[in-house]
C-alpha cells in the first residue's frame, strides 16, 4: 500500500538556530497508529508541524495523502490531516466550547443540521457535554485540552496528528481519550501521536518512532523498540514500569528470547508462566 505520510530526507533548522531535524526518513502506511517519542527539545513538534504545513518543507520532501506539503495550502491540507496543538491555548479562540468544536465542521461546509449532532457527539466523546455552553477561558487546563481535542477529532480526517493529547488528564481520562483515538484508528484513520507517557505508548501504539536530537534512532514495532533498553537510555527514555520490572526480575522462560512485557495484564500472565516453569522444574 502507498504510504499516506512520506518524509524523504527532511532537514530543518529554525532561523539563527542549530539544526533541529537531521535527514529524516519516515514512511507511514494508512491505518497505522504511530507513537512519536523523545526527550524535551528532541524535535517532535517541529517534525509534525511539517506534516500540516505550519512549517514548510522544501519541495518534494514531505508528502501527505498524495499532496506535496511544500506547495499545498494549510487549509487544504487540513481536509486530510487533523492537528491538535501541544498547547490547547494555541488552538482555542472561540468564546463557547460549542462554537470551538463547530468551527472546523462549518469550514467543511456541512449543513447546520449535520453540524449540531456532530458537535454534541464529539463533546460527549470527550466527556464535556455538560460544558458545551461554557467559555473555554473559564475551564481548567485539562478541560481545555479536551476541548481542543474534540474540535479536531470531530473532523474525522484520514490522518490525525496529536501533539501530547493527554496532558493534564488523570488515569481514566487518559484511557478514555486513547480509547477514542484507538476506535478512530480501527475505523481506518492513520494516527500519529506524541507523548511522554510510555504506558500509553505500550498500550496503544503499534509502532514507535524515537527521535533523539533531531534524528530517528529507533523505529519499529512497539515491543521491539522497548526491547532496546540501551538505545532508549541513550535518548534518555524509560520503558514503562512493568517492562523494567520484568527485566529486573530476569526470570527466563523456556523461550530463547526474554519477553518484553508491556502491560500489567501481560505481567500477570508472565508471572503465571514463570510459576508454572518453576513448578515443573521442581517436579522433575
Amino acid at each position, binding site marked *: 500500500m502507498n504510504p499516506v505520510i512520506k518524509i524523504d530526507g527532511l532537514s530543518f533548522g529554525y532561523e539563527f538556530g542549530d539544526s533541529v531535524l537531521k535527514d529524516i526518513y519516515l514512511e507511514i502506511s494508512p491505518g497505522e497508529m504511530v507513537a512519536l517519542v523523545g526527550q524535551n*527539545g528532541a524535535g517532535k513538534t517541529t517534525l509534525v508541524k511539517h506534516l500540516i504545513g505550519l512549517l514548510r518543507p522544501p519541495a518534494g520532501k514531505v508528502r501527505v495523502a498524495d499532496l506535496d506539503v511544500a506547495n499545498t495550502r494549510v487549509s487544504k491540507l487540513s481536509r486530510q490531516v487533523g492537528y491538535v496543538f501541544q498547547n490547547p491555548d494555541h488552538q482555542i479562540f472561540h468564546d463557547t466550547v460549542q462554537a470551538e468544536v463547530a468551527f472546523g465542521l462549518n469550514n467543511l461546509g456541512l449543513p447546520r443540521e449535520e453540524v449540531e449532532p456532530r458537535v454534541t457527539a464529539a463533546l460527549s466523546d470527550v466527556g464535556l457535554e455538560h460544558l458545551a455552553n461554557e467559555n473555554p477561558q473559564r475551564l481548567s487546563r485539562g478541560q481545555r485540552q479536551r476541548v481542543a481535542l474534540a474540535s479536531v477529532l470531530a473532523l474525522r480526517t484520514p490522518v490525525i496528528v496529536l501533539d501530547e493529547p493527554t496532558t493534564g488528564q488523570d*488515569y481514566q481520562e*487518559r484511557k478514555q481519550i486513547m480509547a477514542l483515538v484507538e476506535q478512530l484508528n480501527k475505523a481506518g484513520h492513520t494516527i500519529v501521536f506524541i507523548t511522554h507517557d510510555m504506558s500509553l505508548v505500550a498500550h496503544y501504539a503499534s509502532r514507535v518512532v524515537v527521535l533523539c536530537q533531531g534524528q530517528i534512532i529507533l523505529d519499529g514495532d512497539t515491543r521491539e523498540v522497548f526491547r532496546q533498553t540501551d538505545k532508549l537510555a541513550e535518548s534518555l527514555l524509560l520503558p514503562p514500569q512493568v517492562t523494567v520490572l520484568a527485566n529486573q526480575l530476569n526470570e527466563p522462560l523456556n523461550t530463547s528470547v526474554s519477553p518484553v512485557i508491556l502491560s500489567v495484564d501481560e505481567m500477570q500472565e508472565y508471572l503465571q508462566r514463570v510459576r508454572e516453569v518453576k513448578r515443573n522444574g521442581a517436579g522433575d
Partner: protein
Amino acid sequence: MTTSNNSLIQLNNFSYQYPHTANNALKSINLSLKKGSFVGFAGPTGAGKTTLIKSINGIVPHFEGGTFSGEVLLNGKAADTMSTAEIGRSVGTVLDDPEAQIICLDVEQELVFGMENYGVPPAEMEQRMQKALASVGIAHLLGRSTASLSGGQKQRLAIAAALAMLPEVLVLDEPTSELDPLGSEEVFRVLKQLHQEQGMTILVTEQKTDLLARYCDQLVILREGEMVLSGTPREVFQHPDIFELGVALPEVTELARRYYPQAEPPITLDEGVQFCRNVIQTFGG
C-alpha cells in the same frame, strides 16, 4: 477559629466559587500543613487542584474575584489580607501553563526577574541562577530567547525561575505535565533535595502518581471540589475505592492489588521486584 500554632498553611472550612458560576470549585476544605511537609495533590480534571493552589498563593480571590467562605492562613495570617506580591516572598509558584507564566524575553532575564524584585544581592543571583538551570537540565539554554523554547523547555524554565527564588514554600501546579520521563524524575529529585536540605515546604499537583508515591509524605485526592482521600501514598493506594477515583496507581501497585486487594501494596519498583519474587516463591515452590 482555633489555629494550631505550628501549622504553616492552614485551610479552615474553605469554600470558593468563581464569579458567574453555579457551583463551588472548592467545598469546605480543611487542611493543615506543618513546615517541611511534602504534599501531593491528584484528581481528575476540573477537581479543583489548580483552584486550591491559587488559594494558597493568593491569586484566588485577589485576581479571580468570586466569593469564598472560611479562611486560608499562612503562618497564622489570613491570606486574603496580604497582597500577592507579599505572599510571593515566602510562597514560590509554578503555574500550570508554563507559557502563560513566562514574563521576559530571554532566559537569563526570566530567571532574575523574581530575585531582583525581592532584592537578592546581585552577587548571589549568578550562582543561584546557574544552580537552578542546572538542576532542571537547561544550563545550555541560557542566552536563548524564551519564545524559541520547546514546550518542555518552557516548563523547565518556569520551574527554574521559581527554584532560584528559594522560597519557604513552593507550590507547583502540574510542573511535569510536558516533561519527558527523566526530566520529571529529575524535578522531583530536586524538590526532595530542597525539602531535605533546606526544609522547604512543598505542595505539588501531579498526574504521575508513581512520582507522588515515591517522593511525597502525604497524598491528597480531590474530586469535584472536595478532599475525598488523604494520607500517606501507601494508605491512599491501599484504599478500596481507589480505582473509582480515577487515580493511576504505579503499575507495580496495580499488579500487587490484583493478588492481594487488602494488603499493603508495594509502591516502588524495588518493592515491586521483591513482591514478584515472593509471588513466584509462594506459588512456584
